C-alpha cells in the first residue's frame, strides 16, 4: 500500500467506522467493544507503517479541489506521522482501558462512537494542511469532547461540559477569524503554499486565542480542570494524551512549518508559556481533587511544550516533540491510575484516601513511575524531553525563563509526590482491592513504556529529529 492510501485509511477508517459502532451495539455489547477495539487498533497500527517515510524526511501532498479555494489537502511529513502515531497509540490504549472501566455504564454506544470519532478527527487534523479543514476537524473534536465531558448527564456536569465547549468554540471561532484574515492577505487557505509568509500581528493574536483555548494555556484554561467530572478514560484521552496536544501541534504546524512570527511575538510567547505553566503548577499544589490536580498538571506541562516550540531552536523544538510523546504516555498513566483509585474508592478528594499501596501495589508503582516521568527524572523518558526543552531555552539566551521553568519543575515534583504520598502511603482509610485486569494491565504497560522510552530514547529521538529538521524553515 503506498503512502497515500495508508494516510487516507488512517483518517477515514476511524471516522466512518465510528458511525457504524451503534449498529454493532445493536448486535451485542461484546460485538461493539470488539469492533471499537478493532477500529482503535487499526488506527494505531496504520501510521506505524509510515515510519520509514517519516525517517526519510520527505513530504507528499494529497489534494482534492473544492469550490472557492476550500480544497481538501493532506500533507504527509515526519511532523504529522509522529503526531498520528503518538495520539492514535495512546488513544488505542485508552479504548482498551475503557472496556473495563465503562462495563456497567449506560449509553456505551454513544461513548465508543464519540471516542473513535475523536481519534479519527484527530488523525484528520494532524494530516490536513488546509486551514479550513484543520478548523473543521478541530470543531468535530470539540463536539465529541462536549458530549464526552457531559457523559454522566448530571445537571452540574452538563453545565461544565457546556462551559468547556463554549470556551473552546469561542477560541476556535476567533482562530477562524485569524485564518480568514490571512486568507484576505494571501488569497489562499493552503498552508503548503504559504510557507515562510509573514502574517499580520493581529492574525497571530487571533490564532493564538484558538490555540490557547484548545491547549488550555492560562488565560483560557479553566475548562480543563472542570472537565475532570467526565469519566476517567475521557479525561485521560482529553487531558493527557490527545486533545491538549492538538493546540500545541497546531502551533508547530502554523508557526514553525508555516508562517513566520512578526514583531515582538517570538519573544512574548516563551514568557506566556512559562507563566502559564507556573500558575497551573501553583494551582495544582493547592487543589485537593485528584483529577483536578492532574488536569492542572497537564496545563503546566503543556506550557513546557509551548516553551520548547516558541524558543525555535533545534534543541528546544526537538525536546518539545519528545515531550509530546513522553508526557502523553506518562500523564495517560497517571490519569488511568486515578481512574482505578476513584473507581475503587468512589472518592475524589485525595485527603480521604490513604495507604492504598498495600491493596493496590501495581497501580501505586505505576503511578510513582509515571509521576517520575512527568517530573523529568531519569531513567524515564520525561527527563530527556524536559532536559532538551530547558537546554533549548538556555541556548536561546533566555536564562531567566529557564530558571522559572526549573522552579516549576520543582513545584511539579512537590505536588505529584505529595499526591502520591497522600493517596498511596500512610495508613489505609479505605480498603480498596485492585479492579479489573485490563485496567491494571494498561496502567502497568504505560509505566513500563515510560521507562523503556527513557532507556531506549534513541529511537523516538530519530523520529523527532526528522520532524524537527523537516518543519524548521529557519534551519534552511
Amino acid at each position: 500500500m503506498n503512502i497515500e492510501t495508508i494516510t487516507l485509511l488512517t483518517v477515514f477508517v476511524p471516522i466512518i467506522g465510528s458511525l457504524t459502532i451503534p449498529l454493532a451495539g445493536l448486535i451485542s455489547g461484546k460485538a461493539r467493544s470488539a469492533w471499537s477495539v478493532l477500529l482503535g487498533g487499526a488506527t494505531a497500527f496504520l501510521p506505524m507503517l509510515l515510519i520509514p517515510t517519516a525517517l526519510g524526511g520527505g513530504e507528499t501532498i494529497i489534494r482534492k479541489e473544492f469550490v472557492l479555494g476550500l480544497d481538501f489537502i493532506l500533507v504527509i511529513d515526519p511532523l504529522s506521522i509522529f503526531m498520528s502515531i503518538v495520539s492514535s497509540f495512546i488513544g488505542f490504549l485508552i479504548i482498551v482501558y475503557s472496556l473495563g472501566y465503562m462495563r456497567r455504564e449506560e449509553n456505551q454506544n454513544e461513548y465508543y462512537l464519540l471516542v473513535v470519532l475523536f481519534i479519527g478527527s484527530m488523525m484528520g487534523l494532524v494530516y490536513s494542511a488546509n486551514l479550513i479543514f484543520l478548523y473543521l476537524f478541530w470543531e468535530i473534536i470539540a463536539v465529541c469532547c462536549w458530549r464526552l465531558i457531559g457523559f454522566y448527564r448530571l445537571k452540574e456536569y452538563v453545565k461544565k461540559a457546556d462551559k468547556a465547549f463554549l470556551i473552546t468554540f469561542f477560541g476556535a471561532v476567533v482562530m477562524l477569524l485569524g485564518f480568514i484574515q490571512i486568507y484576505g492577505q494571501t488569497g489562499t487557505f493552503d498552508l503548503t503554499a504559504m510557507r515562510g509568509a509573514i502574517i499580520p500581528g493581529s492574525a497571530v493574536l487571533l490564532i493564538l486565542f484558538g490555540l490557547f483555548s484548545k491547549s488550555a494555556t492560562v488565560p483560557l484554561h479553566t475548562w480543563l480542570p472542570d472537565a475532570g467530572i467526565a469519566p476517567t478514560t475521557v479525561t485521560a484521552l482529553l487531558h493527557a494524551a490527545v486533545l491538549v496536544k492538538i493546540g500545541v501541534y497546531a502551533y508547530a504546524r502554523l508557526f514553525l512549518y508555516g508562517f513566520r512570527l512578526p514583531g515582538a511575538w517570538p519573544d512574548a510567547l516563551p514568557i506566556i508559556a512559562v507563566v502559564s505553566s507556573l500558575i497551573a503548577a501553583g494551582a495544582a499544589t493547592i487543589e485537593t481533587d485528584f483529577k483536578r490536580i492532574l488536569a492542572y498538571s497537564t496545563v503546566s506541562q503543556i506550557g513546557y511544550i509551548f516553551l520548547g516550540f516558541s524558543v525555535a531552536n533545534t534543541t528546544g523544538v526537538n525536546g518539545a516533540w519528545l515531550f509530546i510523546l513522553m508526557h502523553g504516555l506518562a500523564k495517560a498513566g497517571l490519569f488511568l491510575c486515578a481512574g482505578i483509585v476513584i473507581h475503587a474508592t468512589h472518592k475524589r478528594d485525595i485527603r480521604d484516601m490513604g495507604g492504598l499501596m498495600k491493596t493496590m501495589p501495581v497501580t501505586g508503582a505505576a503511578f510513582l513511575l509515571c509521576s517520575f516521568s512527568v517530573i523529568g527524572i531519569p531513567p524515564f523518558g520525561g527527563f530527556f524531553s524536559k532536559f532538551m526543552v530547558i537546554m533549548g531555552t538556555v541556548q536561546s539566551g533566555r536564562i531567566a525563563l529557564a530558571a522559572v521553568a526549573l522552579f516549576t519543575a520543582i513545584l511539579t515534583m512537590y505536588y505529584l509526590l505529595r499526591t502520591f504520598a497522600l493517596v498511596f502511603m500512610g495508613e489505609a482509610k479505605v480498603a480498596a482491592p485492585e479492579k479489573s485486569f485490563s485496567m491494571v494491565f494498561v496502567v502497568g504497560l504505560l509505566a513500563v513504556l515510560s521507562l523503556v522510552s527513557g532507556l531506549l530514547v534513541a529511537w523516538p529521538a530519530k523520529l523527532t529529529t526528522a520532524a524537527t529538521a523537516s518543519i524548521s524553515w529557519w534551519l534552511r
Partner: protein
Amino acid sequence: MIFLYIGLPLIVAAVLPLVGKVSKKVLPDVLANGVFLFLFAYAVTGARGLLAGGALHQTFAWFGEPLGIQIAVDGFSLFMLTVVALVSACVGLYSISYMEHYGAKANYYALLLMMVAGMNGLLLVTDLFQIYIFLEVAAVASYALVAFGREQAELEAAFKYLMLSVVASAAVMIAIALLYGLTGSLSFTGVAEGLRQLDAKAAGAIASALFLMGFGLKAALVPFHAWLPDAHPSAPAPISAILSGLLIKVSGVYAMTRIFFHVFGLTPALSDVLMWTGTVSIVVAALLALKQRDMKRMLAYSSISQVGYVVLGIGIGTPLGIAGGLFHLLNHAVAKSLLFLTSGSVQQATGTRNLDEMGGLAKRMPVTSTTSLIGSLSIAGVPPLGGFWSKLLIIMALVQSHRPVLAVIAVLASVLTLWYYLIMQRQAFFGKLNERWAAVKEAPFWMAASTIVLAVLCLVLGLLFSSVVSTWIQPAADVLAQGMGM
C-alpha cells in the same frame, strides 16, 4: 410549465374542502403531499434543464390571443422554488401524524397549499403589483394557519400578526405607488429603466425605506421583529416550521433582494443599511434568545438572528457575500424547520413547551433528540454541518470587503448562538431523565421520518457543500451579482 408551481397548488386547494367531506384524513394527506413531492421532484430534475439558456420568460395565450400573464424564472427564483418545495414537502409529511388531533385536516392542507401557491407566485412574478398580491395571498393563508388551534393565545397572536402585516403591506403599497408615480410602469425592467433616467435620489430613498420597512417586517428584522416571537410559538409546529423556514425568507428576504438588486440596484448606502440592520438583528435577537424558557420562543428569536445573517450576507453585495447569504438561507430553512418540527414532537409527547419542566428526553426520544442536536449544531455553525460553511462564506466576504468590525460581531454572535442552543439541549435532551416523562414514547412514524430526512439533509449540505454551492447557489448569486439583469 413553470405556471404549474402556482396553478397546481391552487387547483388542489380548491378541490380539497370538497374531498375533505368524502374522506376525513387519508385522501387530503395523499393529495397534498403528492403535490408537494411532485413540485419538489420537478424543481430538482426538470427545471434545471430549462435554465440552460439563462432566464426563462413564459407568456400564455388564451384561445389564441396573448394574455397579460408574464412569469419568469432565473437561477435565483429557481433556487428559492427548490427551497420552498423541499421544506413544504417535509412539513407536509410531518403534518400527516401531527395534525391528527387538530381535526379539519382538509382545511389545513387547503390553507397550506394556498400559502405555498402564494410563495411560488411571489417567486415567479416580474411585476411590482403582482408581488404585492401574492404577498397578500401567502399572508392571509398564514394568519389563518397561525390561529388554526383556535385557543385564546393563538387567536391573540394571529390577530397581532395580522395587524402588523397589514401595516407592512400598506408600506409596500405606498412604495409601489410612489415608483409607479415616478416611472409610470410596474414591471421590474420598466421601473428600473424609469428610475435610471429620472435619477430621483430623494424619492428613490423614500421608496427603498418604505420597501425596507415593509419587507423587513415580513422578514422580522430587528426593529420590526416583535410579532414573530408571539406568532410562531403559538402556531402548530408544522406551521411555525414553514413560517420560520420559508415565509419570512420568501416574502421578506427574497422580495427585498429582488427589488433592491433588480429595481433599485444595490447602492453602497443601501448595502450599508442592509448590513447594519442584519448585524443588529443578529446580536439583539441572540441576546433575547438567551433568556427564553419556552423552547419555541427561543427558536423564534433564533430565526430572527439567523435571518439577520442572511440579510448581512446578501447586503455585502460581493458574489461571495451573496453566495454565503443564500447558502445560509438554505441551511437555516432546513435546520430551523427541523428544530421546530422536533419541538412539535416534544410538545406532543410531553404536552409542555417550558424548558425548565423538560429534562433528559434523549433517553425516551432518541430520534427526536439526535435530529434536534444536528439541527442546533448546524445553525450554531459547527462543522461539518451545513451552517458552518455558509457562515464561513459570509465572514470571508466580510473580511474581503474590509469590514472587520462586522466580521468580529458576526463571529462572536455565533458563539452566542451556540450558547443558547447548548442551554436548550441541556434543558431538554442532554441530561438526567425527569421522572415525569418516564412513560414518554418516541414521536409517531411520519413525524420521526420527516425529522430524519431533514437531519440527513443538514449533514449532506455540510459534507457535499462544494457541489451544493456550485450547482444551486452559484447560479443564484451570479444572477444577483449581475445587478440589473432579469
